[in-house]
């Protein structure tokens, strides 16, 4: 069995309560940090751990914290990003539902390290059940003297508030999130200045993902060096992967980074293979924004090495033959799925979620959606594929926030790896209405592992 750090006690009845969470060793990290460590000691352990942001970009958390400006007499903020809306991603909801205190404990330790007196958890508004759960957990912690004034007699004061969003994927982008938290529309800000210098209310701010913050707890309990021993290379520790699509056992799994993709998909400890005995066609490994890969390239890199669930291995080959870890939203497509239809669906999503500030994103996503609709519905011409390629290329890198890239990459990857499926749709408009292209040469190169 793989080592677990976040979900160790997930199956313990009542682990959502403070009492059971403490019986299982919960809030030891708060005691240790506040009673025996300085804020800089905590930062040092997080740096040593090699923890990388689990929200999507994979930026080292310790380094992000060390950039936080600390002018005298100015408030600083920690804001937890619990907006979780990247298609394919549902790990933060799982963690907050079942072990809310893991997030609250991580928030206390992280806030202490950063020197904040008030910290916020920005939760997407549709997660009303999770908002209630977190508010309950905060009230319990406060009752136990783990929050509020003079926590555990350390002299450190902290309040944590939960803030609901209003339904907008763009508010997961950190500067849009800050705008939203200030009671405005979720329009991303131009960077620089970065939030570390000018964030919430113009004050220095750190924004971190739920899982990043929860990971600080085992890092403080066991030490950064111990954490860094798990994983592979610069991909240290464990990662929550939310697996969906056509899998026998979809769900949230905690893996040690470095697990082979093949084992993750086919072994019974994880996803148990493809549902209904079908074959694997393609995978989106890290949420809808990352490039889709055909089965042969997700299981092995272009050099024939086994592909691993790590930041480096997933990215091996660049965008030509690789993809990204992203948020850990793992989506498996079986042989009967249509890549054109899915690309159209994703593009419709990005058009719907574009905040509209930059023309390449606002106009480009709408234009791509129309062309993809036409291809899917047998109303396109052969030049449309090249047009689509041009549009996505002109969005990438030309926008205020990365949503533009996130909309461009899935289209580029679908054309790159599945061009003949697009061509088939265009050349066989009638047939494409009633039947799917199927596997063709993307066939799963590996037999399923023995049961």
């Amino acid at each position, binding site marked *: 069995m793989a080592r677990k750090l976040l979900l160790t006690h997930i199956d313990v009845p009542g682990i959502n309560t403070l009492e059971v969470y403490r019986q299982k060793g919960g809030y030891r990290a708060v005691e240790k940090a506040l009673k025996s460590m300085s804020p800089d000691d905590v930062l040092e352990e997080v740096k040593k751990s090699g923890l990388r942001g689990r929200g999507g970009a994979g930026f080292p958390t310790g380094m992000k914290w060390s950039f936080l400006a600390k002018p005298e007499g100015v*408030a600083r903020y920690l804001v937890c990003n619990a907006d*979780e*809306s*990247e*298609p*394919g*991603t*549902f790990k*933060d*909801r799982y963690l907050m539902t079942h072990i809310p205190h893991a997030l609250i404990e991580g928030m206390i330790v992280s806030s202490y390290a950063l020197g904040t007196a*008030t910290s916020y958890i920005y939760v*997407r*508004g*549709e*997660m*009303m*059940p999770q908002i209630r759960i977190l508010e309950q957990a905060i009230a319990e912690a406060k009752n136990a003297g783990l929050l509020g004034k003079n926590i555990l007699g350390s002299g450190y004061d902290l*309040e944590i*508030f939960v*803030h*609901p*969003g*209003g*339904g*907008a*994927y763009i508010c997961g982008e950190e500067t849009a999130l800050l705008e*939203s*938290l*200030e*009671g*405005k*529309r*979720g329009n991303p800000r131009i960077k620089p200045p970065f939030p570390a210098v000018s964030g919430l*209310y113009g004050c220095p701010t750190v924004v971190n993902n739920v899982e990043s913050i929860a990971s600080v707890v085992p890092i403080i309990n066991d030490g950064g060096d111990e954490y860094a021993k798990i994983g592979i290379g610069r991909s240290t520790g464990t990662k929550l992967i*939310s*697996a*969906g*699509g*056509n899998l026998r056992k*979809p*769900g*949230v799994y905690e893996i040690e980074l470095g697990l082979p993709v093949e084992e993750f998909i086919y072994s019974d400890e994880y996803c148990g293979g493809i549902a209904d005995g079908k074959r694997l066609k393609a995978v989106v490994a890290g949420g*809808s924004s990352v490039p889709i890969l055909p089965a042969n390239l997700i299981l092995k890199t272009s050099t024939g090495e086994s592909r691993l669930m790590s930041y480096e291995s997933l990215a091996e080959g660049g965008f030509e033959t690789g993809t990204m870890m992203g948020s850990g*939203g793992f*989506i498996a*497509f*079986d042989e009967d*799925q249509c890549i054109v*239809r*899915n690309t159209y*669906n*994703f593009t419709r*999503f990005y058009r*719907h*979620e574009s905040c509209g500030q930059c023309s390449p994103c606002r106009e480009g996503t709408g234009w791509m959606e129309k062309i993809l609709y036409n291809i899917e519905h047998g109303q396109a011409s052969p030049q449309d594929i090249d047009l689509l390629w041009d549009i996505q290329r002109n969005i990438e890198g030309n926008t205020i926030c990365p949503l533009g890239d996130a909309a461009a990459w899935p289209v580029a990857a679908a054309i790159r790896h599945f061009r003949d499926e697009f061509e088939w749709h265009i050349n066989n408009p009638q047939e494409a209405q009633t039947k799917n292209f199927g596997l063709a040469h993307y066939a799963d190169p590996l037999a399923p592992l023995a049961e």
Partner: protein
Amino acid sequence: MLSVKENLIVNFSAELLKSFTEIVSRYPEGKQKSALLPILHLVQEEYGWVSTDAMDKVASFLSIQPVEVYEVASFYTMYFLEPRGKYNLEVCRTGPCCLVGAERIMKYIEDKLGVKEGEVTEDGLFSWRGVECSAACGYGPVLQIGPEYTYYENLTEEKVDQLISELKQKVQNT
């Protein structure tokens, strides 16, 4: 753009105003505008939607301009600027859910309720719409119903039938 078809004159109860004040206290002095999104959720929970009059009164409560409320309420998808059914079924229509049959479920709901997306059934009980990824992709197809936003996962036609009759029953019993 704020296209107003209908208004509803509201009078916030003392209890509601007390909750507003508690929410404002979570933010620093002078940053009361931060309370806008959570307050709009409470307004919608109370009245089922957010009317112009309600937005005007929220603006004056927060000492901000009405337009600051309109632009926010119209930006976010969760706020309804016109009445919906008592139960608004929000079905996820994003890629991963479509891999496991979300489109079929949406069509089934449309046929069963006999109303198109965004419309309300004659008895005022139901409406439905497609929404984007609800962070439940491993348990799709999935729908949510406000204001509690309870999740209904791994939907089948049978589960939809059952849910709708349960909700009808609930109304009859009250």
